[in-house]
């Protein structure tokens, strides 16, 4: 971590991960930095893939906090990033909402599997998440996002989450969900969540999808697997709770192989 400033404005924290081939068939991590609320730890590798676990040393983000995680995967490297626990957005002392920015870059021939645990928007919290993935043609990405609105039986917090994915600068996917008290009207209505409290997306980008696109299919009544206008597939799922959501996204991952 290069900066943690706990001022009245909240905590500013940055974590950085860089992956590149180690020259022996594996992946090296020349950059692995960040502490305080965002601590990336290298865990046991699996074959060519380096594994990193984001360990939350504090709870949060709280209102006023601004967290950034950056991961850069160089040509032919392979990186898996998970998190040790759910991220819990909490109300804070500081004024204003919290921000959580994720910036991913994946080079040609490289693979990133970005599979953090759920984000839980606790009652009274206010969080804006932006996730931006810039891929080169020939990059592979698996990205999972799960949002849970409120702890069990609790009112949701306010959450906005935008996911933007580009390939060689061209947009592949740009989606924003906005929910909780104060969100634009109808978010929980029959076009939005219809009372569901867990929503998730699984995005898979593979160069071979450009030649052989995946057929769309339903995964039950509240989840769809859809080919994007490019070499990617998006699974969109709603569920009553985090456990059922994970089951659906795991099933989708199996379908995609």
């Amino acid at each position, binding site marked *: 971590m290069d900066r943690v400033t706990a001022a009245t404005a909240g905590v500013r924290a940055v974590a950085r991960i860089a992956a590149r081939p180690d020259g022996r068939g594996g992946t090296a991590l020349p950059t692995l930095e960040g502490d305080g609320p965002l601590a990336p730890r290298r865990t046991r590798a699996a074959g060519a893939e380096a594994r990193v676990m984001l360990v939350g040393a504090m709870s949060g983000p709280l209102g006023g906090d601004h967290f950034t995680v950056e991961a850069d995967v160089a040509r032919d490297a392979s990186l898996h990033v998970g998190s040790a626990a759910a991220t819990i957005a909490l109300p804070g002392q500081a004024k204003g909402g919290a921000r959580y920015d994720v910036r991913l870059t994946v080079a040609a021939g490289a693979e990133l599997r970005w599979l953090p645990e759920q984000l839980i928007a606790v009652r009274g919290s206010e969080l804006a998440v932006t996730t931006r993935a810039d891929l080169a043609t020939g990059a592979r990405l698996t990205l999972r996002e799960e949002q849970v609105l409120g702890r069990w039986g609790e009112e949701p917090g306010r959450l906005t989450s935008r996911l933007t994915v580009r390939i060689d600068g061209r947009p592949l996917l740009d989606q924003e969900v906005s929910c909780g008290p104060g969100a634009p009207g109808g*978010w929980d209505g029959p*076009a939005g969540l219809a009372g569901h409290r867990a929503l998730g997306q699984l995005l898979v980008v593979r160069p071979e999808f450009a030649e052989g696109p995946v057929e769309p299919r339903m995964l039950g009544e509240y989840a769809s697997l859809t080919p994007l206008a*490019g070499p990617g597939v998006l699974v969109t799922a709603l569920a009553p709770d985090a456990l059922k959501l994970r089951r659906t996204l795991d099933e989708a991952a199996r379908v995609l192989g």
Partner: protein
Amino acid sequence: MSRTALLVLADGRFPAGGHAHSGGAEAAVKAGRITGAGSLEEFCRGRLHTAGLVAASLAAAAALGLDPVELDRAADARTPSPALRNASRRLGRQLMRAARAAWPSGELDALAGEFPKGAHQPVVLGLTARAAGLGPEDAAHCCAYESVSGPAGATVRLLSLDPFDATRVLARLAPEADLVVRQAVDAAHRAAEEGIDALPAASAPLLEIDAQAHAAWAVRLFAS
């Protein structure tokens, strides 16, 4: 601008094929999520602030003169459901035919040449507005209103909902639609300065999911 040209473009009888689409209402009615005027209003409100805002922004940006090919790509990225992408392109192609008949323009010809199978409907609508001498705000109004009038009209047929109730829903949503238009026009101006990514990307999960389920039905009243 010509206010009458705006009425011609926004008229439900303008032959652009919109009547064949329910904007997701058919699937929501079948699933029991739209059962009357109250749930129709919530459905329309959700659609207005998501798909409606995105469409209005794209149309406003096209009417402002931003690159329609880039806007079409932005529409693709904001529409993960292939059923909805197809519907939008089909509607775009039909609107293109009507628009070229009504307001012939070199820009419309060029876009039709670029996308023989149809560009996304809001992009075509924005260029149509330009050809008709209308501005970004007019184009955004057409899209925002269409995002709620489509489902409301379809629900009258699907549920035998009283047309007076459906019209009251639309009237109640009018102030919010005006607000969405302002957001869309602001976003279009921002996109002209900062690039197309400044356009909103608001999405409604059930609209996307239901559109895929609906596309797989063997028998349906509406195309989407």
